[in-house]
């Protein structure tokens, strides 16, 4: 059985559609259920529905053989796994955003960055030698500069409409090409090659 870690939310439906195109029986995913572990009727596939940021954890540990995760979470988590395919779905950009002109407050020694990508923010700014204060948030990141909690945010931007509605602009595209990736556990790929490799081949054809 191939065990998938699939992200709930934004990518959930897109992922399921893509797998369906490749002959994976995903009907069990369409049913409204509160169960977290699902199996296809033919017992060939198992699915865990997890928070998007947790997909790399499940795959690195080998609890799941394959997973679908945004490049943003892969960058943030930095897990030891194989990135097999760029699925091209869930396109967005990882950006620094804020007000067009940043007010320079004298008592504000460093930039305050609100983000859910704490590791990425630390790395990006450290690479430029900029000292920052990171304000970790879990949602509605745009609220931080609006309320004065932070100077800028580091977040994914899809259409930019939330930014615009709040008077914010993209100051810099840090990672312009964020898409969903198919990731594989390093051991599963070797020990389960008979099942996994043909599926990856079908996925590769489906996205072309």
């Amino acid at each position, binding site marked *: 059985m191939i065990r998938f870690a699939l992200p709930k939310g934004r990518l959930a439906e897109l992922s399921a559609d893509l797998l369906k195109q490749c002959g994976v029986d995903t009907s069990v995913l369409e049913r409204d259920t509160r169960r977290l572990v699902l199996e296809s009727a033919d017992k060939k596939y198992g699915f865990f529905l997890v928070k998007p940021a947790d997909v790399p*954890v499940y*795959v*690195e*540990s*080998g*609890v799941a053989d394959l997973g679908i995760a945004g490049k943003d979470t892969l960058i943030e988590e930095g*897990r*030891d*796994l*194989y*990135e*097999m395919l*760029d699925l091209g779905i869930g396109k967005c950009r990882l950006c620094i955003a804020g007000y067009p002109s940043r007010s320079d407050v004298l008592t504000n020694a460093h930039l305050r960055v609100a983000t859910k990508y704490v590791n990425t923010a630390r790395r990006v700014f450290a690479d430029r030698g900029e000292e920052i204060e990171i304000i970790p948030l879990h949602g509605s990141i745009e609220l931080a500069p609006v309320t004065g909690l932070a100077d800028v945010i580091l977040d994914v931007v899809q259409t930019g409409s939330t930014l615009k509605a709040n008077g914010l602009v993209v100051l810099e595209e840090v990672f312009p090409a964020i898409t969903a990736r198919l990731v*594989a*556990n*390093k*051991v*599963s*790929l*070797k*020990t*389960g*090659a008979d099942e996994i490799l043909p599926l990856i081949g079908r996925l590769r054809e489906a996205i072309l």
Partner: protein
Amino acid sequence: MTFRKLPAGVQDLLPRECRVLNDVRRRLTIRFEADGYEPVLSAAVDYYDTYAEITNALPQEQMFKFTDSDGKLLVLRPDATLSISRIAATKLQSERARLYYFANKWDAQNAGGVKSREIVQAGVERLGEEGAFSDAQTIAFAVDCLRETGLENVVVEVGHVGYFKGLLEACGLSDAQAEEARRLINAKDGLNAERLLRAAGADEGTRAAVAAIPTLFGGAEVFDRAEALTDNPVARAAVAHLRAVHRILSSLGYDESVCFDLGTVKRLSYYSGIVFSGFVKELGAPVLSGGRYDDLADDFGKHIPAVGFAMGLKRVLVALERQGNLPPAPHPDAAVGCEEGAERAACEVCRRLAGEGKRTVLLAEYGEEALRTVCADEKYFAGKDGVKRV
């Protein structure tokens, strides 16, 4: 109340687990000795410079550091192979040696996840040996050792750093770019590896070859594909060497347990030839890791070609448990109860039983009736009127 807790990433081993661990160690010791390996144990505390000032330095964030009374920086053994290489170059008379060790290594960085910061290892190093036969024997021995621990369906995946190095040689990458390329290849991220090479100005042939590296895994059929991708002599020599290793492993009957992956490019950059990792499907991380490191001892003043591997014993235990191959919790072979005044007789019985190699427990507080409920093959009760079997 921190004195009741342990720092993140380290564990106490309780008796049940410790027993199984010792059992695995005992089996491996017999196996290592039978193949002519000699035991060695490097000091657990060593100078920071030993690991930081060498050609292929360990990242400093990986080492547990503390300061000696003279102000010198010390580390907890961050890598067993490095310390054995130091011993071989500076202390051993002969350059040929087969050594085994049971030693911990410490990794300051790996908190949480599937990784531990105190890594219980068993390993072997074959010093002063070169060639495909030595490599093949070491890989075969790695398979044997994993089986010896009780693991089933073991797979050892073999690669060669020369293939990747050869391809990269032609590109003229900076060290930082080469390391980035290695990281991408190791993550099978061919797309970004190709992008990086394009930016560095590599020719189209090399880019296509690098983009294909992540797909170069499987059985011996990958060798033809790997050779067709490049004319680089270093890369082709690496494939030719793997062919030779494969031929020997085949003739030794290890075909089922060995596969090949030219995209395995390990973080530890002291490897100079073949590299390999051992897996079982029940565990998502390798249980064994090794390779050839011919130039490592150069830093310590001697050229000693060498190959070796280490097993992570805690991972082996987890894999054994998941395969259902852990031995059951043992009960004592013999139990001895005793009443007041018969202490001496009880102790004598215990000594006799222990002398016969039986695991014996003395249950001084147990009366004759209570002793009957104890789970043991033999039971004796020492009373004032003598010892009787219950």
